[in-house]
């Protein structure tokens, strides 16, 4: 279980998180919605210990993440797969080596045959051909890079998967492919997932519960139906804005746009 209790974080004068409480139960997928720049990625980085809170507590499997020592943190991180917004692939290594680095068990990492098979399996899970393994990240499209990022995150067989804007910057077709992939991974490997996104339609598709981060606080949490039924003006404003984007795209005005909007219903 992931639990953030009363977490606050500020960068200079900018308050990013202000007393945030957020819980993800084992086996569920929670989408964290919110406008760009609201602090969703910052929240996610607290879970894996890349950022420490100014105040409040962060627990994963009952372990207090900010207070863990180097070794314990490293051990915890080996159970968490993190999919970065822009892939964050190591550009000096080919795809095979990138995914191989995701194998966090040192014995398995040193076993060439296991690595070969595991990388092939991860590429299959993200719908990529085995020959992609020989390519460098610079030779891949944006969508392929995201999928390689996901393959690297699942290579170590994590119990948690954290997705940071997995569909941002993708066209609607590729964004749907990634959403379908998240759904399929959830079913095939049964991980607990947090999907940070500002894509309403995608979050309704992949998540069991949805949380809205708004003005440094969690404004609403609930199932898709509960969020849709919410009378909170902030929730309605966010959903309506996304709905308007969907209408613009349906009219052809946004068909060439990079980021996807989608109807909430």
């Amino acid at each position, binding site marked *: 279980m992931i639990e953030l209790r009363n977490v606050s974080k500020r960068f200079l004068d900018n308050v990013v998180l202000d007393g945030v409480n957020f819980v993800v139960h084992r086996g569920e997928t929670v989408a964290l919605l919110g406008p760009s720049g609201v602090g969703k990625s910052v929240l996610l980085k607290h879970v894996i210990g890349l950022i420490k809170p100014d105040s409040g507590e962060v627990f994963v499997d009952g372990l207090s993440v900010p207070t863990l020592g180097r070794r314990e943190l490293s051990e915890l991180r080996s159970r968490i797969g993190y999919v*970065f917004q822009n892939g964050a692939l190591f550009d000096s290594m080919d795809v095979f080596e990138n995914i191989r680095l995701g194998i*966090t068990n040192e014995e398995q990492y040193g076993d060439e045959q296991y690595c070969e098979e595991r990388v092939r399996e991860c590429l299959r899970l993200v719908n990529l051909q085995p020959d992609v393994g020989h390519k460098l990240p610079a030779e891949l499209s944006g969508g392929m890079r995201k999928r390689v990022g996901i393959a690297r995150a699942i290579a170590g067989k994590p119990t948690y998967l954290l997705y940071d804007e997995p569909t941002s910057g993708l066209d609607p077709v590729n964004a749907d492919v990634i959403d379908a992939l998240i759904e399929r991974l959830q079913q095939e490997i049964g991980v607990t997932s947090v999907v940070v996104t500002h894509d309403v339609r995608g979050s309704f598709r992949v998540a069991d519960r949805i949380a809205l981060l708004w003005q440094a606080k969690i404004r609403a949490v609930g199932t898709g139906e509960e969020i849709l039924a919410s009378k909170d003006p902030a929730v309605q404003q966010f959903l309506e804005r996304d709905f308007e984007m969907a209408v613009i795209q349906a009219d052809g005005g946004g068909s060439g746009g990079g980021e996807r909007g989608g109807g909430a219903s």
Partner: protein
Amino acid sequence: MTAITPTLDLRRYVGRWTLRTAGHAGRFSFLILDLIRGILEWRIWLPRTIEQTLAVGYGSLFIVLLVAGFAGAVTSLQTGYQFTGQLPLYVAGGVIVESMILELGPVLTGLILAGRIGARYAAELGSMRVTEQIDALESLGRSPITHLLLPRILAGVLAIPALVMLANVMGIVVGYVTATSSLGLTYADFEYGARYFFKPLDLWYSLIKSYAFALSVTVIPCYIGYNTQQGAEGVGRATTQAVVAASVTILLLDTILTKLILGAQ
């Protein structure tokens, strides 16, 4: 009112400068501690160190030898210009050998490598930081210290003293060739002068300086690159800062080591 504002500005400036300096001192100290701790994890850094050493050593060999060759030729010509007719010709042998070993070989090589290796390390690590590759490595439970910094620093510590020794030899050989052709110096005179002024301590001094410069050229740029912020502009700034800081440190260490080692004689 007008009298108060500059005072407040000055206080604020001094306060910020003090905080920034203390922050750097703290982060740098922790980095050194992490580097020392990371030495135990030799299975991780050893293969990468060999790769880096070959890249740094072979990659810098041509420019180092070129600069050392020119330094030897110029030293030879200037010795001829200043001493001809006033001192015995064999003195030129001593001046060329001593100048190369004591000063020109280590310092010129250090400054060239501050530009070549220092800039490369800062830019590589800075780019990795701003594209979240370092975060990605940490998220996989792997230490950037042992995977990225330690191999680079150890590669420099292995390759740079060897490059300095080769630069010394190159400078002396070219200096001798120049002296024979322009000053009419014979090999016997050159050897006599070189042996007359040479002390074994000179070679140790050259070697000690080369190790000190190797640490400046690697540790400082790695620290600056590792802590890069703010995108492409930040990478550019980090690269410039790394070269300037490493170069100034080399000149400072040159003075201190000269006083400590040769000043005590």
